[in-house]
C-alpha cells in the first residue's frame, strides 16, 4: 500500500485501450495497482499482469476516514461501499443492475440439523441474475467504462455469463460471452435472453478461459471482466464480506465457509474483513476462513492436504459446474488465507452435494445451486472431522440459485402421481403415502 508508484521500464502495460500515463482519475479512492507476487506497482489502468513476474495485479487504495454512518446512509446495494471499491464516487447514478444487500439468514433449523450452535446463510440468490457474480460484474463494468473499453466480455461457467449479459444490456453496451458448450440449459438460456453475443466452445471451462485470455490480448477495446479487468472485477466480491459484517451489527463472524472455484471470492471476503478491521469499522476479532470444493474438481483442497503452496491443475468431473475450474488462478492465495486464519478446505462428492441442497431447502426454504450444496456439504464434513468448531458462530455462502442447476437434483426428487379432484382420491393418496401430495 505504501510502495511508490513506478512505471515498468521493461515493457508497456498489457492489453487495453489505455497506455501508461493516461490512467483515469475517476476510480474513487483506488490509488494504484500492485503485484501480489513481487510487489511491483503500476498506475491504475487497463492492465492485470505484472510485467516483471506474470503475477496478478491487485487494486490498492488511499483511504480517507470512513464511518459506519456514511456507509449506512448509502443505497441498499453494493454502492453503499463505493468508497472501498475502484469505482467513481457517483457510480450509483449510472445505469447498472444495483446488486447486493442480499439477506443474511439466521439458519436455526439448519444449525440444529448440522450440530452447530449459531449458523447464518448469506443468500446470494436475490441478486439481479441470481448469483454473487452481479457484484463483481457491476464493479468491473464501472471500471471498464472509466478505462475506455467498449465491449463487456467474459469466459464463464454460467453465472458470470448471465451477469455480464444482463449488466451490458442495462448499460447499453455490447456483450460477448464464451461458455463451455455442455453448460446447463438454464444458464445458456438465461444468457442469450439478454441479446448479446454468446459463443459455445467445445471443451472445458479451462479451454474456454484459454481462448478468452488470447482474445483479451487481441481485442484491445474488449473488457474481459475476469481477465484483463480482473483487478477491478475481483474487488466486487469484498462487498459480500462487508455486508456480512454490517448485517451482523458491525462485527465479524468467527468462521466462514466459502465455495472455491477460481478462489477469488474467498480471498476477497478475507480482504474485506481485514479492511473493515483496519478502518476500525468492526472490532479486531479473529476469524477462520474455510474453503469448499467438489471432489471432482478439488485441486486447492488437494494442495492444502498435501502441504503444498502451489496448485496442480486437474480435469474437472463434477455436477457442480460453477466450481469446475481445474486450474484456479487464485488457488495459491486461498491456501495462504486458509492457513493464515487457521481454517481448512474440504471436498465433497456430488451425492453429498445433492443431499446438502435438499437439506438447506427443507430446513431453511433456500434452494441453492450446486455451489451452495458443495458449501453446506463441506461444512458438514469439516464439523465431522473436527476442523470446524460447532460452538463458534459460522456463516456459509450460498452463491447462486438452484433454479439454474435443476439437472443436478431432479433425478433425486420423487415423481408426482396426479389424482382426480375428489376427496376420496386425496384420502386414498394420503393413506398410500402417509403424507398428501407425494408419490
Amino acid at each position: 500500500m505504501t510502495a511508490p508508484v513506478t512505471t515498468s521500464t521493461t515493457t508497456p502495460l498489457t492489453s487495453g485501450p489505455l497506455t501508461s500515463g493516461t490512467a483515469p482519475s475517476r476510480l474513487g479512492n483506488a490509488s494504484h495497482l500492485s503485484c501480489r507476487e513481487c510487489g511491483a506497482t503500476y498506475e491504475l489502468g487497463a492492465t492485470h499482469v505484472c510485467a516483471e513476474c506474470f503475477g496478478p495485479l491487485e487494486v490498492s487504495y488511499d483511504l480517507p476516514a470512513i464511518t459506519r454512518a456514511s456507509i449506512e446512509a448509502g443505497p441498499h446495494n453494493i454502492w453503499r461501499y463505493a468508497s472501498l471499491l475502484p469505482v467513481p464516487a457517483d457510480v450509483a447514478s449510472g445505469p447498472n443492475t444495483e446488486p447486493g444487500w442480499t439477506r443474511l439468514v439466521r439458519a436455526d433449523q439448519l444449525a440444529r440439523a448440522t450440530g452447530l450452535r449459531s449458523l447464518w446463510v448469506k443468500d446470494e440468490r436475490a441478486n439481479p441474475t441470481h448469483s454473487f457474480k452481479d457484484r463483481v460484474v457491476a464493479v468491473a463494468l464501472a471500471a471498464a467504462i472509466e478505462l475506455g473499453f467498449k465491449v463487456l466480455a467474459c469466459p464463464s461457467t454460467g453465472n458470470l455469463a448471465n451477469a455480464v449479459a444482463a449488466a451490458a444490456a442495462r448499460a447499453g453496451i455490447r456483450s460477448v460471452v464464451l461458455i463451455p458448450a455442455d453448460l446447463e440449459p438454464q444458464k445458456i438460456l438465461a444468457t442469450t435472453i439478454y441479446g448479446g453475443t454468446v459463443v459455445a466452445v467445445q471443451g472445458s471451462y479451462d479451454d474456454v478461459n484459454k481462448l478468452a485470455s488470447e482474445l483479451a490480448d487481441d481485442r484491445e477495446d474488449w473488457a474481459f471482466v475476469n481477465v484483463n479487468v480482473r483487478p477491478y472485477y475481483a474487488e466486487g466480491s469484498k462487498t459480500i464480506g462487508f455486508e456480512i459484517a454490517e448485517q451482523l451489527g458491525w462485527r465479524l463472524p468467527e468462521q466462514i465457509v466459502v465455495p472455491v472455484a477460481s478462489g477469488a471470492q474467498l480471498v476477497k471476503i478475507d480482504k474485506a474483513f481485514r479492511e473493515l478491521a483496519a478502518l476500525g469499522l468492526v472490532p479486531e476479532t479473529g476469524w477462520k476462513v474455510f474453503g469448499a470444493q467438489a471432489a471432482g474438481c478439488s485441486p486447492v483442497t488437494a494442495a492444502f492436504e498435501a502441504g503444498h503452496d502451489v496448485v496442480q491443475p486437474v480435469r474437472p468431473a463434477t455436477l457442480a459446474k460453477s466450481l469446475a475450474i481445474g486450474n484456479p488462478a487464485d488457488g495459491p492465495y486461498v491456501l495462504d488465507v486458509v492457513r493464515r486464519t487457521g481454517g481448512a478446505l474440504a471436498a465433497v462428492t456430488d451425492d453429498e452435494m445433492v443431499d446438502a441442497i435438499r437439506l438447506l431447502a427443507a430446513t431453511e426454504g433456500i434452494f441453492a445451486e450446486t455451489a451452495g450444496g458443495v458449501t453446506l456439504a463441506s461444512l458438514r464434513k469439516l464439523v465431522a472431522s473436527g476442523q470446524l468448531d460447532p460452538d463458534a458462530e459460522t456463516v456459509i455462502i450460498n452463491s447462486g440459485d438452484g433454479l439454474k442447476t435443476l439437472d443436478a437434483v431432479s433425478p433425486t426428487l420423487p415423481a408426482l402421481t396426479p389424482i382426480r379432484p375428489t376427496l376420496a382420491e386425496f384420502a386414498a393418496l394420503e393413506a398410500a403415502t402417509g403424507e398428501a401430495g407425494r408419490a
Partner: protein
Amino acid sequence: MSVSVRVPTILRAYTGGAAEVATEPGTLREVLASLDASYPGLGGRILDDAGRLRRFVNVYVGEEDVRLAQGLDTPVPSGVQVSVIPAVAGG
C-alpha cells in the same frame, strides 16, 4: 517444419513486438531455451530462477496445458503451436 510460439503482449518487448515467433522442435524445456537464445531475457520471464515454470504463467502445447502433460519435458513436435498465457481464471 518448425514450431510456432505465441507470445503475450507483456513479453513482446523481447520479440521486437512480434506476436508469434518460430523455433525448432524438442521438449518444451529445449524450446524455451532456444527462444531465450534468440530473444535474450525472454526465458527468465517464463521460468523462475530455479528453472521452473513461474506460478502464474500457463503454457500450452497445442491445446494441452503442459502442467497436465509432462511439464517442461512435454514434447513439442514440428507444426504444433505453443502458447504462453498469463494465468487468470474465474467464473
